[in-house]
């Protein structure tokens, strides 16, 4: 069994950091002040989540849906307004703390891998409909008719007291 070359190890490390959003390009399409919808794969048996359940899923503390499917968390790249909102409200972390959080979890083998990075709302919306068990967040304006939007504490993004806005 040969050892991996140092260059490849760096590539892997940088790739992991990139997945966690370090050094990723700024998304010029970011918009602020808009509600963010939590979207899941259409077959996922979850129409309503409590905010606590949502937080556990996003923080990798709950990794399987009730039907046994693995949760695949799709995260927007840094600088997207919706990512900043999710980090603030759900994770209560900044980018550095977020990166440290996931690397720590991987080092402790509490998760197999960090969130999967997506570079646009379109990509997040498209991927969540084709990946069983996927969950993501998109600005409410990017929600399509095929998207399955989950209620948070019984509220939809259109409701006044919705938490992710």
């Amino acid at each position, binding site marked *: 069994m040969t050892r991996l070359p140092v260059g490849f190890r760096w590539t892997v490390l940088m790739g992991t950091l990139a997945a966690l959003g370090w050094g990723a390009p700024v998304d010029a399409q970011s918009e602020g002040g808009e509600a963010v919808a939590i979207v899941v794969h259409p077959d996922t048996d979850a129409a309503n989540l409590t905010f606590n359940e949502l937080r556990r899923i996003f923080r990798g503390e709950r990794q399987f849906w009730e039907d046994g499917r693995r949760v695949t968390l799709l995260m927007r790249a840094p600088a997207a307004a919706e990512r900043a909102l999710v980090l603030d409200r759900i994770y209560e972390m900044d980018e550095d703390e977020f990166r440290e959080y996931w690397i720590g979890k991987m080092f402790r083998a509490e998760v197999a891998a960090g969130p999967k990075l997506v570079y646009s709302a379109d990509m997040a919306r498209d*991927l969540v409909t084709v990946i069983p068990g996927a969950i993501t967040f998109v600005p409410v304006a990017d929600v399509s008719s095929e998207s399955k939007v989950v209620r948070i504490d019984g509220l939809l993004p259109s409701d006044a007291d919705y938490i992710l806005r």
Partner: protein
Amino acid sequence: MVVKTEWLVRGAVESVFVVGSILLALAVDEWAENRDFAELADQSLGIFEQELVQNRDRVEDGLPYHQGIRDILGQMVATPPPVIDLRRIMEGLETPVLLNTAWETALATGALTHMDFDVVRALSLTYSIQEGFTSRSRSDRPRIGTGEEMSPADFTAQVQQAYDYVAALTRDEAELLTVYQQALQLVGRYHGTAPPERAETAADNN
């Protein structure tokens, strides 16, 4: 004469005791050594099991995402997207980081020589397949051009190339999951633990 006989008998008895003691000491030493080797092999099997579970979980975690990317690229082959979209997809694509620490440690400590040959053969095969997967996922990865220098036909070819790469990646991942599962069953049999359960995986939907 009687004294001489007694001396001979005593000498013979003492010799038997001395030789017996030496043989017993050697037997105890060998037993202790065998027990140490058995413990080393068992400990290594436990480490192999942990590592295989971790690697399996990493592949299992990434497979649905890669299958999703594959399906989207499949649609893009028919309707090529803007170059930037393809670049973003391929830049965001991560292949799982798989460990081979248990194998390297077992080689270094000589633990493999104290394991059953069937287990060693299965582990060797597993890590060879894993290494081949890691190597292919790195070397076969297509580089997407900027678009400025590409004709529409060239770009379509790049989309196809990206699709082929991700399709092969998902096939390899599904195969690797099967290999891990079988290796875990075998290791569990010798280590005395049942193979850890796995949830319904994307490999089942492949």
